[in-house]
């Protein structure tokens, strides 16, 4: 019976340990960055970055380089591009985002098709789009740690200007915040967070990790710092519990397990539905 809840070898498995570390890191960064994504109304932009970054991840598979570099490169370019195209008006930003992300997915389709026909990496599409947490190479773990720390440092540095600009851009500008530069910096930090989630739960699902825990946090607390703490805890709990359940699922259905991403995103959804509207 305990095998169904905690299958043997969970804590001694190398791939599990990497998944717990990299997934946990992605959860922490997503929780912190995601609160700003939600209060700045950039959920759609976050999703678009993820879709575009999937083109980079696919290209990396095709070329045989570290997928994280692909995710990072494309997300960074897309973030800078979206800020350059449609900064001023909300509608402009929306349209620019929509156009860019369609193009990104088209590229991903091309690269994944080429990758599966010319080489024999049949799992590339699943890995890029939905993640393969138990197959993260140790080298990616080190790169992920650097990316995560840079993203956290970026949010810490810009915490107050970003918070004020999230309340109202004119208030921030009058208080001496360079609103345009802060927006660009935030979009780049968002690109880092998205790339980090993309290698764990996959590009398509990274928005769920970014936005879901923050949405829960906004329901249960009215303070900005606490919101980040709650978002981090929800994201961490969902990620680690999801990894455990996915590991256990090899026992439930002998021969093959269920995807980690399925469990993580479902747990986040459950937290969102069950979260009390306390504050």
């Amino acid at each position, binding site marked *: 019976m305990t095998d169904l809840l905690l299958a043997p070898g969970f804590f001694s498995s190398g791939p599990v340990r990497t998944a717990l570390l990299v997934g946990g890191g992605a959860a922490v960064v997503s929780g912190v960055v995601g609160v700003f994504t939600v209060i700045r109304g950039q959920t759609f932009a976050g999703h678009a970055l993820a879709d575009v970054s999937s083109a980079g991840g696919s290209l990396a598979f095709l070329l045989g380089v570290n997928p994280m570099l692909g995710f990072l490169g494309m997300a960074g370019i897309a973030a800078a591009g979206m800020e350059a195209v449609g900064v001023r008006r909300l509608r402009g930003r929306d349209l620019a985002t929509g156009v860019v992300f369609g193009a990104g997915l088209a590229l991903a389709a091309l690269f994944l098709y080429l990758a599966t026909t010319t080489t024999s990496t049949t799992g590339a599409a699943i890995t890029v789009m939905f993640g393969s947490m138990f197959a993260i190479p140790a080298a990616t773990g080190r790169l992920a740690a650097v990316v995560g720390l840079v993203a956290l440092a970026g949010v810490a540095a810009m915490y*107050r200007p970003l918070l004020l600009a999230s*309340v109202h851009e004119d208030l921030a500008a009058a*208080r001496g915040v360079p609103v345009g530069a802060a927006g660009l910096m935030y979009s780049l930090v968002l690109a880092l967070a998205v790339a980090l989630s993309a290698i764990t739960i996959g590009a398509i699902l990274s928005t769920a990790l970014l936005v879901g825990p923050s949405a829960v*946090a906004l329901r249960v*607390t009215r303070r900005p710092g606490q919101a980040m703490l709650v978002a981090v805890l929800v994201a961490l709990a969902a990620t680690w519990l999801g990894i455990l359940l996915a590991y256990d699922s090899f026992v439930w259905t002998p021969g093959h397990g269920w995807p980690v991403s399925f469990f993580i995103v479902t747990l986040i959804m459950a937290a969102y539905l069950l979260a009390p509207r306390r504050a």
Partner: protein
Amino acid sequence: MTPLTVDGLGVVLGGRPVLRDVSFRVEAGEFVGLIGSNGAGKTTLLRAILGFTAPSRGSAHRGTVGYVPQKILLDPDLPVRARDLVALGLDGNRFGLPLPSAAKRRQVDEMLAAVGASAFADERVGRLSGGQQQRVLIGHALVRRPALLLLDEPLANLDLHSAAGVVALLGRLCREQGIAVLLSAHDMNPLLGVMDRIVYLADGRAAVGTVDEVVRGDVLSALYGHHVDVIRVHGRILVVVAPAEELAEPEQHATLLPPTAR
């Protein structure tokens, strides 16, 4: 340094001259009403003073400024309490994480008390009523003791009682703290008790002086370029602009008539 000196200011937006040649000063402790109908250029003038819009001619020089933008609608789900927004007025432009400080907390508490916002200091700012949000925004703008306070139509969305409360608060802060206040409004009547002087904007130009000097038929007729009547009834002032050829209906800055009677 004079808190605000506007000198021959002109602003062109989208090829259209919105302000032509506006000059005035606001001294410390002085309450100046920026009055004009919709589209007269009030917001443009404030944005030029803030440096958000570049002037096409002339200049605006100012000291440190606090600003309350118009028609602000804060997101009710924002995880920001009234006291957080006031604190951001103190150091919202700083990099790095805010460290808890007793001195800062005391400053924020004093400001919340000064604007009458202590009772809802720990509420989400986006869930407060319009009048309560105005008080918090004024606290945010004033907490670092600027020389100049700019408010863009702060009374626009308030009921009469809240508006009177905000006006009384601003008049008191202006006198007690020696802050120069420039407040824009389309209706001057709620401000008659507190305004020292008025900057009356029409057609991109300004008439400046006390209410009695400026709000007169001859002065405003010259400003508008056609006949204007100023009617004083029960301590209220009604400016009635005669319909010009291109105007579909007369402009009224303070109407005593129900909308259907216009």
